[in-house]
């Protein structure tokens, strides 16, 4: 008998527990709740955790300045553990807790596991870092992006590589395990060839790789030699590739996208090797706009470290976008927030002005071309996409 009692006990306990996590109804004196879904543990945590830290900083600042519409803002964060099952569960939990909006993720595949649930429940979801230009089309009218699209950033760096760096023949390295990196390479190759350039050779690697010696040897063996290399990688691989290429004594320009926007690109190779790296990214690093300098100072004061990568200011801006929409709408109702978000024009985000003027709802943001020389980051130029341009994209 004893064991059967235990069995029923466990079942009853489980049920009681799950029943206990219910929601309360929103009232005007209650805080405005925003959900933040990020992978704080597991393989994606180095990308996602800094974004949440910055989002928390923004919420803290808003509350110190008196909140929104006289109400406090509460950020409810969920660690989805680099697991899509957890992501789907957390999205369901978030929408059942009376949140008015959600933010999250630096990777498209996780957004696609969470955002549809927000869409179904009529709650806006603002992804801080995901950059696939089809996201709003796939999810629906409650989906918003803080960052630019992969097509824009790839076009920017491809144009720079062709026109300013005078590269005609490059090699392309792609992290084949992620959609973000695959898309980035695809758009780069497309534009670089349109510009008259030649893709001499392609190699792949996988997320989590640390040894790139085989790819490097392959690059060295090309005849005629390539003039540059495009590396589509996430921040944890960015510094590793630069260091190993430079250690091998290869000094051709290395070009990439916002995955390279991390201090690791300079620190891992060290100042003597971190040279001739060019990447397109959000107008943030090396920028002297007051909102940028303020953000960096505030972040360093709060966490005793500089912002880790470009996903960091994007997390800050995702909250900023929502706060801006709530104030413009004068309401914290999810549908009103959505309408206000859609009307966002020239919102002064840390990562550049945000307007939703395009048909595909990808914000046409200016893009910085940044170079790394002697371990220092310098902004070389600002690339502007066509406003309202509808990219020729297919699903």
């Amino acid at each position: 008998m004893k064991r059967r009692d235990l069995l029923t006990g466990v079942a009853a306990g489980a049920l009681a527990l799950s029943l206990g996590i219910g929601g309360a109804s929103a009232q005007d004196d209650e805080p405005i709740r925003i959900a933040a879904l990020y992978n704080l543990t597991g393989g994606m945590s180095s990308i996602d955790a800094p974004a949440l830290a910055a989002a928390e900083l923004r919420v803290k600042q808003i509350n110190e300045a008196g909140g929104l519409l006289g109400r406090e803002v509460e950020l409810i964060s969920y660690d989805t553990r680099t697991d899509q099952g957890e992501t789907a569960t957390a999205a369901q939990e978030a929408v059942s807790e009376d949140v008015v909006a959600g933010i999250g993720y630096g990777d498209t595949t996780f957004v696609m596991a969470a955002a549809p649930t927000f869409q179904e429940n009529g709650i806006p979801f603002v992804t801080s870092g995901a950059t696939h230009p089809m996201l709003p089309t796939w999810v629906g009218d409650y989906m918003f992006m803080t960052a630019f699209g992969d097509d824009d950033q790839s076009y920017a760096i491809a144009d720079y590589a062709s026109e300013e760096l005078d590269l005609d023949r490059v090699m392309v390295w792609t992290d084949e395990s992620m959609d973000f990196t695959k898309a980035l390479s695809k758009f780069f190759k497309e534009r670089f060839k349109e510009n008259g350039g030649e893709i001499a050779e392609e190699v792949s690697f996988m997320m989590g790789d640390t040894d790139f010696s085989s790819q490097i040897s392959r690059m060295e063996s090309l005849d005629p030699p390539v003039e540059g290399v495009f590396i589509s990688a996430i921040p944890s691989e960015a510094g590793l590739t630069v260091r190993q290429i430079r250690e091998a004594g290869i000094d051709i320009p290395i070009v990439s996208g916002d995955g390279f926007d991390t201090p690791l690109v300079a620190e891992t190779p060290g100042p003597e090797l971190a040279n001739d790296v060019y990447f397109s990214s959000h107008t943030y690093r090396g920028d002297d706009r007051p909102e940028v300098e303020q953000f960096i100072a505030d972040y360093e004061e709060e966490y005793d470290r500089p912002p880790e990568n470009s996903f960091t200011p994007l997390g800050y801006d995702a909250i900023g976008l929502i706060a801006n929409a709530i104030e413009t709408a004068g309401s914290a109702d999810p549908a009103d927030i959505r309408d206000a978000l859609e009307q966002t024009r020239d919102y002064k985000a840390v990562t550049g002005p945000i307007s939703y003027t395009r048909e595909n709802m990808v914000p046409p943001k200016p893009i910085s071309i940044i170079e790394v020389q002697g371990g220092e980051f310098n902004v070389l130029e600002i690339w502007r996409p066509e406003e309202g341009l509808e990219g020729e994209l297919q699903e």
Partner: protein
Amino acid sequence: MTGGTGMMDRLRHNPAALGIGLLLIGAALIAGAEAWLTPFERTVIGFAGINIILAVSLSFSNGLTGLFSLGHPAFMMLGGYTAAILTFPAMRKSTMLPGLPEFIATSELSLLPATLAGGVVAAVAALIAGFPVLRLRGHYLAVATLGLIVIVQVLINNMDSITRGAIGLAGLPRLSNLWWIYGWVAVTLFVTWQLKHASLGRALMSIRENELASASIGVRRARLKLFAFVLGAFFAGVAGALWAHLVTNLTPNSFGIVTAFMIVVMVVLGGSGSLIGAALAAIALSVISEAARPIERAIDAYGLVQIVTATLLIAVLLFRPQGLFGSGEPVTRRMTTPGKPPSKTSHEHRGGFPNETS
């Protein structure tokens, strides 16, 4: 003995009545859950159900035969992708998945046939892979099945025209509900339970206990092992299909080596070969993982849930090495149970690693 126990005894001798009773109770619980619980609570319970299917089916093939396969996620992927492609709206299929053959591209199935197809595809893959691979033992089999996960992952990642590669299949219809999931839980438990307690189960157990001796009394071990492996894969495929239509999104990274470890943990916690034990361990792990979330958030210490779970896991193994229920079933202890009572099994059942003597 109280009157209640007397009734239970009578029920034990009438398994059909017991089964129908359990089904009715289960149906009432699901009806209640679907009616009163929030979508979030139903999602948690849904994932718990999927974990039960995975743990029970792995416990069946690994625990009973002493196979040590880590390949469940590979079969989940095959089942999940098969089912997802079949239920995907035909309108979008032709543009998003141009590589599909005509008859699949134009059809749009409902969940049940898609799930069955997913299970069958997984089972066929297990049959093809199992035929050579099951000759391996112990750790060698573990590594080979680990390789199976990687190979399936890489293939799906590269077959963009059928699977959309790394971006995955998004926007699947949300078809999985508690009825489907727990219906399959019941089927999984029923089938594995019947097999375990039939003569086939005894033959399987004899392979685990002593492969040489079982061969000498005429147990055709290769065929039986393959059967257990294929059946386990079928249910893994079904679980993958249900998972895909609960999450509504499927990518090559949805299931991997970490998933394999989690399922093995459930099996070992429950007691290798104990079907009910595996089911309870699956529920316990799912509940702990969700229940500890608010604590983790309150003290801003993400990773705490994993730390607590890992510590609990180690503690259980230290104090109850045979798992919660050994290889017996908690409800049949006084019935004719194959094997020995759990209390005696600890040092004799080298669960999962047969004949490892080199």
